[in-house]
């Protein structure tokens, strides 16, 4: 998501429910974020915007920068990173979010996709899930 993201041409203002799948979004810069913010607030008429496969780098920013996810935006699933200290690879795992509440448990580790060693959850859940409060 960057200065070339063409969000303003998604004409969804007349819809009541919009679904966004962010799978494959690899990076976000501040110009892209500005475009996202402008667009998100321009479609306030849409009753519900659901987001699937929201990447961790986007949610890290949403946790500290208020306003990135307006109240009518509902993150339904996130992609959590697991870091392997052995081969320094990151493995990603999808996690469902139910009823806009932080999950009571998150798997602390899983096998690394590359070397099968133990890859540990690479976020602090106490900080990460703050995006649900904003």
């Amino acid at each position: 998501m960057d200065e070339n993201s063409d969000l303003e041409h998604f004409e969804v203002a007349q819809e009541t429910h919009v679904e966004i799948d962010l799978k494959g979004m690899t990076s976000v810069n501040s110009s892209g974020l500005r475009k996202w913010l402008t667009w998100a607030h321009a479609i306030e008429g849409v009753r519900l915007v659901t987001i699937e496969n929201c990447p961790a780098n986007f949610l890290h920013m949403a946790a500290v920068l208020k306003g990135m996810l307006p109240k009518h935006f509902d993150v339904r699933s996130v992609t959590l990173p697991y870091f392997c200290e052995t081969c320094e690879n990151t493995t990603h795992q999808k996690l469902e979010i139910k009823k806009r509440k932080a999950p009571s448990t998150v798997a602390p580790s899983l096998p690394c996709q590359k070397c099968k060693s133990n890859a540990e959850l690479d976020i602090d859940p106490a900080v990460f899930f703050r995006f649900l409060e904003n």
Partner: protein
Amino acid sequence: MKQRRRDLDKELEFIRAGRTAECGEIALSQNLPAERILELAYKTDLRHFVQKGSELARELRVARVMTQTPNTFLNFPVSSVLSPRKAGIEVEKVLTLSEWMLTRYRDKSDILDAIFDLFEQARLNSSLRDDVRMVADEFLCNVLFNATQRDGLNDRALEESVRDSESLKDPAVLRAGAFEGNFVLACVDPYGTLNPKYFLERMYRCVQVGASGAMNLADRGTAGIGGFMIFNACTSLYMSVKKGERSAVCALFPLKSGAKARSLQPKNIHWTHL
């Protein structure tokens, strides 16, 4: 706005950055949160905030290079940050993994792809790759859209700023380097329009009012979102400016840690404006 010195004594210690009083002071602290460091950098006249920890000695030396030999920092930022005792042309060549020239807007995506390739080929930490790429993107955007404008302030709309034909009168340089467990990204432009104090103020405001609030308040120039994204991703931020001649901005990252461990590292800020 200025905080009184006796209030600061509770959380900071002060040591001289050089032999003379003109060199200023380095503020030492222990485990101050990132937001507090940013607030202090914005609200005080202090220019070097160093947190105690494993990188203390190197950070103090970088502060001294920036204050005592500022041209060394502006010309050899990679070695000044990674190996400040030996900063100079020879060590700069040894510690630089890659160097890219930015001459026009279209170079940006090629450079970002090259950073991705660098991490793949050198088998560097994949968790760090995305943060470094994002910081590089912000550095290059700042050069393209802000550094070339009067006083570094860009009052053009985003749509006006992004033009394929956007070219720089003089090229900027982005370097990546690594040494002793640290990775640095250094961006040097030949404009010298960066105003570190303004940059810090916008970043702090962005944290205070949120991204959309900062955008609404940004009648002119940056909203501080990009600056905050850089500060949030790295452990140390260095800005040195020779007005009208050159700006050098560097971001330091621990090479081996995952994102969670990096976010727990105390943050340092340094800036000089000649």
